[in-house]
Every structure is written in C-alpha cells, then in structure tokens.
C-alpha cells in the first residue's frame, strides 16, 4: 500500500492554464505538506496543514491555493500557470508535525509549463 500518493506523476501544460495536483495519505497522520523542488534541487516548503487547518504558508504566490477536504487529503491548485512554476512538487505527511517525527513523502509530480 502506498503511504503518500500524489497524482498525476507528470503534468505538462501551457502557460495561463489552471491545474490541480492531488495528494492522499493513508497513514493516519495529522499534518500534511507541500514542498517544491526547483531546478537547483532545493526542497522548499510551501504549505503545511494540521487536521485540515493551514498552519504554514510560506511566501508563495496567491495563484497557489491548497485545499484540505479532510486530514487525509491535501490538494494543490495552481491558477494562471507561469513558466517559473515548472518544478517537482512533493506532498508529505507526518504524525504530529515536525517535532520529533519524520515526514513521509509522495513520489512527486513533475510539472512542466510550456
């Protein structure tokens, strides 16, 4: 069973489009995250949700909007896609947050904006 699954694995789309990436975890974790890995391979947090509540929102453009319908799901919606949004996006979850626990990551979604 996949612990953290995100779909799609690859996404190629044109500038200006709106797209969503879905994430689900079956670990019973309370906290979920979205990370972005850019062309320099730097893994940077975007959002963190605890029990459907937003707790971390880094300096991410308003075009990015996370949605957590329940604590097992954290989807990422991106409006008006730009070339610079091309990256690999990773979803992750952890039991209580980052204090003393590790995060489990999904396989990543490679987004290419053309």
């Amino acid at each position, binding site marked *: 069973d996949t612990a*953290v699954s995100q779909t799609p694995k690859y996404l190629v789309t044109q500038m200006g489009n709106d797209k969503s990436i879905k994430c689900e975890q079956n670990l019973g974790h309370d906290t979920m*995250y979205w*990370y972005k890995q850019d062309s*320099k*391979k*730097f*893994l*940077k*947090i975007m959002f*963190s949700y605890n029990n459907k509540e937003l707790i*971390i929102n*880094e300096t991410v453009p308003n075009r990015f909007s996370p949605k957590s319908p329940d604590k097992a799901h954290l989807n990422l919606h991106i409006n008006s896609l730009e070339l610079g949004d091309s990256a690999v996006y*990773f979803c*992750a979850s952890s039991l*209580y*947050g*980052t*204090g*003393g626990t*590790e*995060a*489990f*990551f*999904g*396989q*990543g979604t490679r987004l290419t904006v053309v």
Partner: protein
Amino acid sequence: DQQVKQNSPSLSVQEGRISILNCDYTNSMFDYFLWYKKYPAEGPTFLISISSIKDKNEDGRFTVFLNKSAKHLSLHIVPSQPGDSAVYFCAASVEGDKYIFGTGTRLKVLA
C-alpha cells in the same frame, strides 16, 4: 538565507569504504535533525534522525553525529554499498515547525 547547507554537491566512494556526508546549519534553535535519501523519480525517504539532546544515533550501517557547538551534522555509512547511491538531504526543524532542507549531496558508490 539558507539555514541548512550541504556544501558538497557530490561524493564518490569505493564499495565497502566509509561514506561521510556533511551538513551545516545556522539556526541554533533547531532541535531535530533528519537525513533523507532520494532516488531519481522518487520522493525522499526517511533514513535516520537525531534529537538535539543527543550527539549520536546509530541504525545499522548508518550513524548520524551532531556537533551542536559547531552547528554541524554528519551521516556515516559503513560499509558503503552500490545501492546507497542516491541524493542525500539533511533537514532540520525547530519546535514542531516546518522542515528546512539542505540542497542535497549526490553519493555515488563505486563497485
């Protein structure tokens, strides 16, 4: 401002020898440190962690050392195996806040 740094982008080691991956940090408030391993086209997978109240944690072939005074973390893999070839990320967190990752070190273990 990069609070977690891995200054060696790559490292090559002969099979059976020791691999030492290094990580430096600037925030003295970090209280939990982790190492992740990442294969191509996969997400990072947790390897080993250490709390700031310890200076060493061992799990099989993997040992993490923490030197708080130097704000330095290292991962030792002994003996190194070809399957250990991957990108290794160190990460740190403070008081249950977000994980901050380094930029990774690509380890290549030569058979």
